[in-house]
C-alpha cells in the first residue's frame, strides 16, 4: 500500500430507509459507507449490516431454508417480521422469486407484497425485483411505486439491464444495487452508466457478485479488495459501499448432500464463512438466507 489511503478519500455514504421525519415510515434508517481505509483497519465507521433474504414464492428457494422456516415461507410479511424480531436481522431483502414463473403477469401482487412487507417491518428494506428482463419494466415500476418515500435499496442493475431499476430509483427516490460479474472494470462502467442515467452517486451500492467459499469466492475477495483500494486512491466511480449475497452457498454439494441431521449446521457454516469473508473484503451489507446464519454473523461482529 502506498500512502494514498490516508489522503482523505472516503467511501460515499448511502442512506437506506426513511423514518417519518425523512418522509417514510421506518423506525430507523441506516447510513452505510464513509470508510477511509481498508476494512477492520480502524479507519472507518464500519457500519456493517446483516440482511435476511426472504421470497414471495418458496418454490424457488433453497429446500434447507424452506424446511427450517416452515409455514413462514408462505407468508412474506410474517417471514419478514420474524427476520427482524426473532432472528435479529438488521434488515430484510425481499426477493420476487414469483417472477421466475413462466408467463408471470401478476404485477399487482408485486405492489401488494411490497406494501405488506413494508408494513410488517420497522427497518429499511432491500427489494430484489424481477428475475426476467422482459418483466423488468412492469415489476420495478410496481416495487418503486409501492415503496415511494421509503428509500428502498432496489436490485439489481446489470450492464445490459439497468434502465428499469434506475428509472424506479429516480422516480420514487430509491437506492440501487449495481452488480457486475467479478470485474473491477465492469463495476466502474456500470456505475458510470447509472450516473449518466441520472442516479445520484450516493444512491449506489456495488455488488461485485460472488460464488461460495471454496467455489470461487477468492476471485470476488480480490475484486472487492481492488474496488476498495481504487476507491481509497480517489477513484470516485468506485467509491461506493458494497453488498454481497453469497446465494450459491446453499446449493453447493456439501450442503445439498449433508446428512439430514447436519443440514442446517452445514448450511449455516457455509453461509457464515462466505459472508464473513465478504465483510472482511469490504462489504457493508451481507445477505444470507438461513435464519441461524444471521445470529452467528451478528455475534461474530460484536467482538
Amino acid at each position, binding site marked *: 500500500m*502506498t500512502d*494514498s489511503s490516508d489522503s482523505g478519500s472516503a467511501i460515499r455514504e448511502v442512506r437506506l430507509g426513511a423514518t417519518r421525519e425523512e418522509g417514510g415510515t421506518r423506525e430507523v434508517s441506516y447510513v452505510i459507507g464513509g470508510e477511509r481505509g481498508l476494512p477492520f483497519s480502524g479507519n472507518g465507521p464500519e457500519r456493517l449490516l446483516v440482511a435476511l433474504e426472504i421470497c414471495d414464492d418458496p418454490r424457488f428457494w433453497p429446500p434447507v431454508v424452506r424446511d427450517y422456516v416452515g409455514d413462514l415461507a408462505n407468508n412474506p410479511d410474517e417471514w419478514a417480521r420474524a427476520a427482524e424480531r426473532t432472528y435479529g436481522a438488521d434488515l430484510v431483502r425481499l426477493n420476487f422469486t414469483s417472477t421466475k414463473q413462466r408467463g408471470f403477469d401478476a404485477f399487482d401482487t408485486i405492489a401488494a407484497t411490497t406494501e405488506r412487507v413494508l408494513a410488517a417491518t420497522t427497518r429499511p428494506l432491500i427489494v430484489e425485483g424481477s428475475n426476467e428482463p422482459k418483466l*423488468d*419494466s412492469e415489476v*420495478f*415500476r410496481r416495487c*418503486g*411505486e409501492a415503496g415511494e418515500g421509503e428509500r428502498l435499496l432496489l436490485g439489481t442493475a446489470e450492464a445490459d439491464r439497468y*434502465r*428499469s431499476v*434506475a*428509472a*424506479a430509483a*429516480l*422516480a*420514487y427516490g430509491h437506492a440501487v444495487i449495481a452488480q457486475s460479474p467479478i*470485474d*473491477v*472494470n465492469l463495476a*466502474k*462502467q456500470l456505475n*458510470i*452508466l447509472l450516473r*449518466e*442515467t*441520472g442516479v*445520484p452517486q450516493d444512491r449506489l451500492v456495488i455488488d461485485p457478485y460472488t460464488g461460495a467459499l471454496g467455489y470461487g469466492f477468492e476471485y470476488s475477495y480480490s475484486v472487492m479488495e*481492488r474496488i476498495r*483500494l*481504487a476507491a481509497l*486512491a*480517489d*477513484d470516485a466511480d468506485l467509491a461506493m459501499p458494497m453488498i454481497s449475497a453469497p446465494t450459491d452457498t446453499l446449493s453447493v454439494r456439501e450442503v445439498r448432500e449433508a446428512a439430514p441431521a447436519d443440514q442446517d449446521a452445514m448450511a449455516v457454516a457455509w453461509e457464515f464463512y462466505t459472508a464473513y469473508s465478504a465483510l472482511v473484503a469490504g462489504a457493508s451489507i451481507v445477505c444470507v438466507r438461513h435464519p441461524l446464519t444471521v445470529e452467528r454473523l451478528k455475534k461474530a461482529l460484536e467482538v
Partner: protein
Amino acid sequence: MKNRLTDSLDAAIERGRTDLDARMRALAGKLAYADTAYALPVTYAVTGIAVRDADGAREAYRQSSNNLLVACECLMAGEGGVEGPYTGFIPDAVLRRLGYTLVDGSVTGLGLLVGTPESPDAAAAICREMQEKYLLTFLAGGVVEALSGAGVRLGLDYRLVPLGPQSARGIHFADILARVAMMFGGVQPGDVHSLLGYAAERAKAFVIAFGGLTDEETAFVDALRVLGIPILAAGEGYEGGAWIPVAPAEAVRTGMDLRGIRVTVTAIPIPMACSPAFEGKSIRKEEMYVEFGGGRTPAFELLRMQPREEVEDGKVTVVGPEVDAVAEGAALPLAILVDVAGAKMKRDYEPVLERRIHTFVNYGEGSWHVAQRDLIWVRLSKEAVAKGVRIRDLGTLLAHKLRMEFPDHIDAVQVTLVTDRQKVEEMLPEARAIYAGRDERIAGMKDEDVETFYSCTLCQTFAPNHVCVITPERPALCGAITWLDARIAHEIAPAGANQPVPKGEVVDAVFGEFSGVNRFVKKASHGETDRVSLYSMIENPMTACGCFECIAAIVPEVNGILIVSRDFTGETPLGMNFSTLAGTIGGGAQTPGFIGISKNYILSDRFLQAENGIARVVWMPVSLKEELGDRLRAKLAGQGMPDLFEKIADEVSAPTIEDLIAFLKRVDHPALTMRSLI
C-alpha cells in the same frame, strides 16, 4: 386571421407575442394546477418562482425575460380544466409513471401533434408509426377530433394522450418536460441552464404542427424551440421561419432522426438463427449449397458512408441471380456493398465497421465468411437454403446487425448484393482504389498529427495498475487495438475501458514523454506509475499486463535489443524463453530494459526511438522475421539500411549469447558501435 399563404411565419409569431403580452397584462385572479408539487411547472423550472396568482405570474414572466412558454402556462392555468376524454394538466403521480417509461427505455421519445390535419388518415398514419416506434404522443387541437373521427383509439394505454381541444393545451407538453427534468434530471427550479441542457440532451422530443394554428398558438409552438425541440411543419402556412417543412409521411422519421431516437430491434426477420454461438462454425464443401469468391469467382465487400438522404434504412437489393437460380455446388461472383449513414458516422470508421461484416455473416447459422476486402470467401449451407435462406437474407442480416451494434453511429443501412459477374468485375477497381486510400490514411497517421491518444485498461481485471497508452504509431501491446479502434471503441462505449488521453505538453519528444499522458497514467494506475516514455524501454517504460505479442529485452553483452514473440517456445540468447521473460515483466509494473510490445510496433517509426529504434535489434526468432518479412525489409530500406535484415540473428544463426556475439561481429551489426545502452 390573416392569409398565412402570403404571410411569413415570423410575422405570425410576432403578432402572437403581442397578443400574449396583452393577455398577460390583463390576467387576474388565482392560478394553479391540481395535484402537483411543482406549481406552474415551466414557470417554476425557468424562474424558480412558484406562481399562485396573476401578479406572481407577471413577475415571473418579467424575470424570464418574457419567455412565451411562461406566458402560455400562466394564461392556461387561469383557464381551468377540460372535459373528458381530454386529460388537461397531467398530475404528478401519472407523470412519474410516464417519466419512468422514458428513463426505462420502454418509451423511446416524445411527440406533440398540434393543429388540424388536412387529412385525418395521414394523421392516423403518423400516430400508428409513432406507436410502432414506441414514442409517447401528446395531442392538442383539432387533431384530436380528426383522429377520433378516423377511428383511432386515444388514451394513455395507447400512448396517444389527448391534452385538450385547443392547440394551446400543448403547453402541458412543456410542463411535462419541465417536471421530468426536475424529477428525474435533478434540475433545480430556476436553473434555466441545466433545464435547457436536460431538454436538449435527454428529453428526445419533437413537434409536428398541422395547419390552422392561430397567431398565439403559432407563437407558443415556436417558443418550444428554446428547449431544443424541432418543429416539423406538416401543414401549410408556416413558411419563412425556422420550422422544418415535411411531408406527413416523412414526419416521424424526420423527427426521430433529428432527435437521434432509435428503436432497438431484437429479432432479425430471416429464416435462419443468428447468434454469436454460430460464429466459430464452418461450412464444408459437402455441406455447401453455393459459394462466392475464395478464388473461384471475383468477390469483394465494401462499406461506405453515404449522405443520409441516399440511404434507405433496411433496404436490401440483389442484382443478378439469386441462389435458387443456380444449381447446388455452384460458385457465384459477389459484391457486398453496404451503405451506412449517421449523424455521428465518420469516414474513418468505415474499415472498422467493414470488418464486422465478417463477424455478422458468421453469426448466421447457415452462412460462413472468411477473409476481407477483395479476398472474401462466403458460403451458404444446403440446410439453410432448404429452409429458404437466400442471398438477400445476408443483406437483411447485415443491415440489422449493424444498426443493433452501432446504434449511436448508424442511423440507416442499406445493402446491395451483386451476383452479376460483369457488374462485380466492373466495380472491383474502384473498390481496390478505396482500400488503397484507407491503407494510406492509416499508415500515414503520425503521433504528432493527433492531440489525443487513447488508453486501454481492459486488462486491469488481472493487472490492476496497468495502463496501455495507444497512439497512432504504437498499437496496444496485445496487437488487437489500434489507435483508430480505440477511438471508435470509446465513441461506442464512452464509459468503457478506452478513454481519451490528452497529450498535453511534450516533455521529451525523443523519449515520447507527454505531460497529459503522465497525468492520465498516474490516475489510471491508481498512483502506481507517474511517468511513462512511450518510445523508450529504459527510461520509464510502459507497464505490461501479460497480453503482449512480443517482448523486447536488452542484451547488455552486445549493446542491443532482442525481440521474442509469444509463439516462439525455445530459449533466447538471454537464456530465458518467452514465458520466463513474460513472468518477469507483466502485472502492471515498469521493468526498465524489458517491454511488452505488439508486432506492428516493430514496424513503426517510433519503435524504441530513444534507444535508436530498429537498428538496435540484434535477434528475433525466424518465425517473427518471416512474418514481418517484406514489410520489415521495406522499412529498413526506407531508413537506408537495406542490409540490416540479414544482420538480425535468429535461433538458427545464434542460439546462445556466445553465438550471438560472434554473429554480430561477423556481420558488423550497427548496435555494436552505438552509445552504450546501460
